[in-house]
Structures are given as C-alpha cells and as structure tokens.
C-alpha cells in the first residue's frame, strides 16, 4: 500500500496535486494562453529567440562607503564579466538627506554609497564611460535628483544623454508599503514620477523611467501572488497617473520596467514570471488600449530573495542562490542580481560577490538552459500553475480596483496588512517546523562565528563631512541659491520639475538642499 500523502499547499494558497496531466490543460489554447515567444500575450518571453539572441544582463547591486570605494568595486565587477552596473545608495541619500544631516548619523555609507552632490557622482563613475554601460539606480523619492546627476555627468564626459541606458527605480508606492524610503506624500510623489516620464521621453529616450518593484513587497513577507498583484496594481496606478498628466500611453509605456523576487518555490516562481507577462500585456492592450507592441512588454529584473539567506551555515546560501537564479532564467528575466552568500551577515566581500557573479555565468554558459526559449512551456504543471497564479492575481486586482486603486490600497493600509499577515504566517510555519530552513530549524550544527566579514570604514562619515564642507565653500553659492529658488517656483507650479533639478545639480547644489526645498513645498509623509 502506498503511504498516505500530506496535502501540499503553496504559500499563495494554491493546492498542488500529486501529478498533472493532459486533463489539467483540457481546452488549452496555445495562441491565447501562450502565443509564440515575442508575441502576445508574451507568456513565453518578450523576444522570439530570448537568450539565443541576447543573454540577460548580469547586474550585481553594489555600493558601500565612499564613491571611491564603490568605484573600485564597479571596476572589479566589470573586469570579471559583469555586463551592467547597479548602484546601491546609502539610506541618507535614499531619503534625501546630506551626509551631515543629524538623522544621517551612523548611516553614512552603510547600506550603499553616500552621494551628496555631482562631485560624488563624478568619483563614483570615474573611468567608466557612460555610453558604454547601462546603469540601474535603486533610488525612489529622490530619483529625479540622481538621474539629473547622471545626466550632468554624461554631459561632462561628452556623452549625449540620448544615448544613456539605464534604470531608476522611481517606484514610490512600494516604498510606503514595504521598503520605507519615502519622503513626500503620495500625490506630489506621483507628480514627480509623471514629470520624470515626460522628461525622459524627450531628453533620455532610452532610459527605463521606473522599475515597478515586487521584490521588496516579497522581502517584506508577501506571497508570490501578492507580490505580483500589488506590483501590477501599482503599475496600473502609474499608467493612470501619467495618462491623467496628459501623456499618451504609447509615449511612456515602452519605458516601464519591472523588478521581481526569485524566492524558494521553484515552479511557483517560474509560473509567477510567466503569468506576470501575460497579465500585464492584457492590461495594457485591453484596458489602456496601447497600440505600440513595446507598450505591452513586461520587461523585468530579478534579484534572488535576500530574506531566504541564512546567517547559519552561510555557504549553503550559494546553493539557494544558484537555484533562484535558475528560476529567474527559466522565467525569462531580462537582468539578474544574484545575492552573495554572506549577505545575512554583512555587505558582500569581494570573494562572495565574485562567486555570486560566477553563479550566473555557470547558468549562462555551462548548463544549456539558454539553448531554447521557455523550455518549461507546455509542462502540465507549469501551465496549470501559471493559470492558477493569474487567476488569484486578478482576484486581488479586482479587490484593489474596488477600493479605488493602488494609491488607496496603499493609503488605507490594505497592502501592508496583507503582507504582514503573510509574513507572520511564514515565520510561524518555520517555528512550528512546517517549513524547513536548512541550518535554522533542521540540520543544525554548532558553528564558529564567521570571520573576515566586510566592514564599512567608520571614517567614511568624517570623509564625507569634510568633502561637503569643502564643496559648500568652493562652489558658486549665488548660482546655487538661484537654482534652488527656481526649483521652488517650478515645484509650486505645474511645470516639469526635472529641468530645474538638473540646473541645481549642475550648479553643485546638494541632494539634501534640493530635497529640502521639495520637502518645504510638498510636505513629508508620515506613516500612521
């Protein structure tokens, strides 16, 4: 007799059958559900030949300490075959404070690089021609300021901004629910975002104006379905805001991009990525009437799930990350960050960062998964799961719609409560032993405390403070004052705010000064 089986239910609430077969796909219409790769609804991928044409961009998120130290890490990663840059900024930068602000104490250079002015940006990209790389910047509330610095730097390098490639995260809605680096209230934040869309269309047409991010929603504890549903709901809100601001959908939609998490359940994640493309394409076509096929494409970056890394037996993380990276590739990602094995302990050391990059290279060059497009397409299980996830996402989208949309679901706390519920259930499942975490609740061993962790130089705060002092003494302060005055006027009007920000940045106004003006005009958001 066969042993009785336990019920298997994914975190998203989808029950998994013992076996899947043709009956599960009865009536399955290939062209409606999948389409050829590169064709509507893009379930199989956004390109007809996917990785046979071009591999994903290997883009490792990096940044710590001073601009000079981070620049050295960038050069190291590029030498090792990384194909795109991704800048991690420290928290004061992300929240619009200069390094000498009192709330910056202890935080300068810690989770990323400190950037106070164009001067730091010049050091950060020293020796890196901006027309030769694509750069992603994890920056949200002050995204316009950092983008302006990047453009100003390109001009100084003699690079036409029209040739710049890269991404700003610029996704404020998920900051309110999951990540926490908001500054202004939702309404002015949405205005800044749509101003950025309009500015980029004209001035930096190849730039990805936003990276609508589920990654952090998942890290905050959501399920795969919630990650997808809330991200797409946020995406809808941005599209609506831009249309309201007078842009036509095909003007900005081709530059929207997404960012997802590769968590632990292998097939659930792959199905999530496939469902994401299909749902977005439908929304853009049917709801927003997009005509340009590029407006329908959900292009996305993936990062392996930081929250699944363990501080216990940290080298086991190498194995987790390798599988997670594989999920992203089988799911058709456009770019990928693989976490370093030591990230539950500290920022990655050179050695750990290198192994993370090598993990991607093994997948790209050694194991043959790039040989054909969407190799799991047609699998009874994967297609059933893709359908099940899609269905559950539509349910959430409907609920959020009834609430008045994503901005409302952010403001009334709906998204946050849903995430909190899931994250608590997850933790309880671990503590009850229903979920296995190797090294934490099973296969535990006694370990020595880890050695040789990366430590951010504690002198960094002093270095940055000195630099700021010198900058404020040596720049043309009259020009700065004029630029900030102009910024205030535009912020109070309905004109595009990015232009005066660019002027201010070029005058070497600091990030804190620029955001300070905007704080005065727009006010600050406080979470209840």
């Amino acid at each position, binding site marked *: 007799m066969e042993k009785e089986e336990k019920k298997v239910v994914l975190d998203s609430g989808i029950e998994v059958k013992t076996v899947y077969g043709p009956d599960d796909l009865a009536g399955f219409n290939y062209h409606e559900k999948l389409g050829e790769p590169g064709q509507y609804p893009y379930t199989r991928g956004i390109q007809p030949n996917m990785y046979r044409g071009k591999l994903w961009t290997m883009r490792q998120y990096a940044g710590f300490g001073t601009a000079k130290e981070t620049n050295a890490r960038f050069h190291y990663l590029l030498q090792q075959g990384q194909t795109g840059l991704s800048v991690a900024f420290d*928290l*004061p930068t*992300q*929240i619009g*404070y200069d390094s000498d602000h009192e*709330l*910056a*104490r*202890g*935080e300068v250079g*810690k*989770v990323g690089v400190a950037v106070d002015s164009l001067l730091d940006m010049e050091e950060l990209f020293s020796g890196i021609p901006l027309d030769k790389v694509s750069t992603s910047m994890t920056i949200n509330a002050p995204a316009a300021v950092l983008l302006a610095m990047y453009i100003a730097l390109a001009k100084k390098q003699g690079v036409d901004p029209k040739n710049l490639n890269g991404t700003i995260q610029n996704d404020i809605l998920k*900051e309110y629910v999951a*990540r*926490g*680096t908001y500054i202004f209230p939702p309404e002015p934040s949405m205005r800044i975002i749509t101003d950025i869309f309009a500015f980029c269309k004209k001035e930096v047409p190849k730039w990805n104006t936003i990276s609508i991010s589920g990654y952090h929603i998942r*890290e*905050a*504890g959501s399920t795969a379905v919630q990650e997808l549903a809330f991200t797409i709901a946020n995406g809808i809100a941005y599209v609506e805001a831009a249309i309201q601001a007078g842009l036509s959908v095909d003007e900005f939609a081709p530059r929207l991009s997404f960012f997802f998490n590769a968590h632990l359940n292998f097939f659930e994640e792959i199905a999530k990525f496939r469902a994401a493309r299909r749902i977005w394409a439908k929304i853009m076509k049917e709801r927003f009437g997009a005509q340009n096929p590029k407006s329908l494409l959900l292009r996305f970056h993936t990062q392996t799930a930081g*929250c699944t*890394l*363990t*501080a*216990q037996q940290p080298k086991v993380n190498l194995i987790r990350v390798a599988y997670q990276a594989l999920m992203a590739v089988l799911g058709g990602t456009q770019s990928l960050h693989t976490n370093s094995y030591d990230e*539950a*302990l*500290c*920022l990655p050391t050179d050695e750990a960062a290198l192994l993370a990059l090598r993990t991607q290279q093994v997948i790209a060059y050694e194991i043959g998964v790039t040989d054909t497009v969407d190799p799991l397409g047609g699998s009874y299980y994967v297609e059933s799961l893709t359908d099940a996830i899609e269905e559950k996402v539509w349910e959430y989208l409907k609920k959020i719609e009834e609430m008045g949309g994503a901005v409302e679901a952010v403001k009334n706390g709906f998204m946050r409560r849903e995430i*909190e519920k899931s*994250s*608590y259930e997850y*933790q309880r499942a671990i*503590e009850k032993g229903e979920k296995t*975490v190797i*090294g*934490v609740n099973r296969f535990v061993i006694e370990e020595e*405390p*880890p050695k040789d*962790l990366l*430590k*951010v130089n504690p002198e960094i705060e002093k270095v940055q403070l000195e630099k700021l002092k010198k900058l404020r003494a040596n720049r043309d302060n009259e020009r700065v004052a004029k630029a900030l005055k102009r910024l205030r006027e535009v912020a109070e009007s309905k004109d595009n705010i990015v232009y005066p920000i660019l002027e201010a940045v070029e005058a070497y106004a600091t990030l804190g000064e620029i955001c300070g003006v905007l704080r005065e005009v727009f006010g600050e958001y406080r*979470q*209840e």
Partner: protein
Amino acid sequence: MKKIRVLIAKPGLDGHDRGAKVIAQALRDAGMEVIYTGIRQTPEQIAKAAVEEDVDVVGLSCLSGAHNELFPRVVECLKELGAGDIPVIGGGIIPHEDHAYLKEKGVKAIFGPGSLTADVVKVIEELVREEGKDV
C-alpha cells in the same frame, strides 16, 4: 497579573521592518502588550516613548549596519531620562564581533537572523523577572 509591556522600535533610517513586526506580533501572542513605533525614529524619540508608555523592555531592530551608533545611544537617552533601568535588547543584521561592544554599552541581548520568536519571548520574561518588577 500585569502584562509585560514592550516597546519595539526602529532607530535610524532603515525601513526593513518585517522582523520588528513579526516580533511585535509574536510577543502579543505570548500575552504581552506591545507598542511598535514605526520606522525612522531617533534614539531620543524612542527613549521618550519608552518612558511615556511605561514599558518594561525596549526592543530595537536595525538592519542597516548603524546599530553600533544607534543602540548605545538609546541606552544613554534612557539614562538621561532617569529610565536606565529599562532593559534594552536588539536584533537585525548585527555581526557577531559587534555583540561584545553592544553588551558593554548596556544592550542586554542581541538576536541575529534566524532567531526564533520563542527565544525572544523567553529572554524578555527573564529580563523582567531580573528587574524584579511586579508583573
């Protein structure tokens, strides 16, 4: 019997509050009264809240690496308010080599990634007992 009151707080600019919220809920489930400050609190604000809310224990969470600066500052601020007897514990991404420094500065216990909420509950109960508080 009076319930144990705990302030869970996020000092500094770090927005990662998944852990803080999970701990808050677990402590509530263990019968404690928990006040969660929300993110981006200064040590001064946290100490003031601890006194005003008359808590038995303060639990700090920080994942940004600023713990060596922020945790001892909370301990100091509590002393300045004459509330140095409120024990402070902390959690987050805190390298082992920083534990000794934080303990020397008056932080009573540190919980790293992978800690079980049941252990946090136990330590809080012990701390309150040690304080000899009438709870």
